[in-house]
């Protein structure tokens, strides 16, 4: 419909959210959206969401970016996510409004 963009979705350990957003901020990424109460299951076991003891909860970060910036961000976050665990995917989308 409108011009093409890339949508990056990251699900990782909640403890790393502050580091991740600082990284994005330091590189002046145009925008991102965060969910803080994210549960799940993966290679590192069950994240049942009880935050009191740390490390058992995820966060979700989503970025809608032009192809160029998306590629930059992908490289930026890769080493962090390797360390913090979880998944990061990218898919195609289109702007309706920005």
């Amino acid at each position, binding site marked *: 419909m409108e011009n093409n963009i890339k949508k990056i979705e990251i699900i990782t350990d909640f403890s790393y959210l502050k580091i991740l957003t600082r990284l994005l901020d330091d590189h002046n990424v145009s925008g991102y959206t965060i969910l803080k109460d994210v549960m799940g299951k993966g290679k590192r076991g069950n994240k049942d969401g009880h935050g009191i003891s740390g*490390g*058992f909860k995820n966060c979700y970060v989503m970025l809608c970016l032009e192809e160029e910036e998306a590629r930059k961000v992908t490289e930026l976050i890769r080493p962090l996510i390797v360390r*913090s665990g979880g998944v990061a995917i990218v898919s195609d989308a289109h702007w309706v409004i920005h």
Partner: protein
Amino acid sequence: MDSFIHNFFAPPVPFFFVGLLAVIFHSDLEIPEQVSKFISLYLLMAIGFKGGVELHESGINTQVALVMIFAILMALAIPLWSFFLLRKKLGAPNAAALAAAFGSVSAVTFITASNYFPSLEIIENIKNLNLPGNIASNPKAFIPGGEMVAAMALMESPSIIIGVWLYRKFSDTQDGHHMDFKEIMKEAFLNGSIVVLLGSLLIGIVSNEHGSKIMSPFIGDIFKGMLSFFLLDMGVVAGKRIKALKDAGWIVVAFGLIMPLINGAIGFGIANMLNFSAPNMFMFIVLCASASYIAVPAAMRIAVPEANPGIYVPVALAITFPFNIMLGLPLYFYVTKLVHKEWANDFILLMKQAASLGSVSGH
């Protein structure tokens, strides 16, 4: 073992087991996370404020200074021997994370332990009745000093530094090393729990008696109920974490039971050497014997990413914590009374008076 029975069956402790059993029987019981954070902040606010008021009254004397200095020293030293005890079996990253947890403290264990003592109000009430001279003349001798709360705050973070340092020194894979050390320090010393604890301690110190009375229904009267609720939640979370230990093996469980005894024994030795008062001795042992399952795991998750939170969290939360509140506290109280025989007699007298008064201990 009378205090064991008492501690075991009267709230708040049994609520821990309700939570634990709920998980074991696959109930869907869950305390909402935000509520559990609220109650944990409430408990810290209450204990911090009470400690501050007491510290205001006692002032800084030699015992206060000694308690604080040795609290920090223990927080730095415990991780060292803990690490070398654990490293062979668990590897450097897990050993470092667990060592840091044992060097730090569990606020809820501390708070549960403080229930062993009557409140100052109750002692004052009894004073107006007939007490033997030695009790009446020094009611403060029967409650821990405010410095113990300060000691708890001081012990919360230093072990993180030692844990990270040990990990970096002894770990083969050098993964976390590019993490900013300053970052980790900030994480360690500025987490919300410490800020609320220290902030309330300070407010307790500066606010006069007036402030203390204003807060008393909030921080005093409903305190045990809130603690019961929190222990219910702890039981649920411990129950969930305990499953992860099946994979970790019995050695880890054994560590969770032995470490508090070793660390507690050393704490006892120091307290005895330095002539800590009986309540301070008991609380000092508790601080040494307890392990952190909140602040330290949060910091370790980032600083030592290779360590498995499925090991270090359950050991502290599902083994050491219940061991301490069930068996540890009565034991530590027992040895404290052994070396403070005279005090123990007076204390029993006092508690009898409190009971006959229709009053209750520790709120």
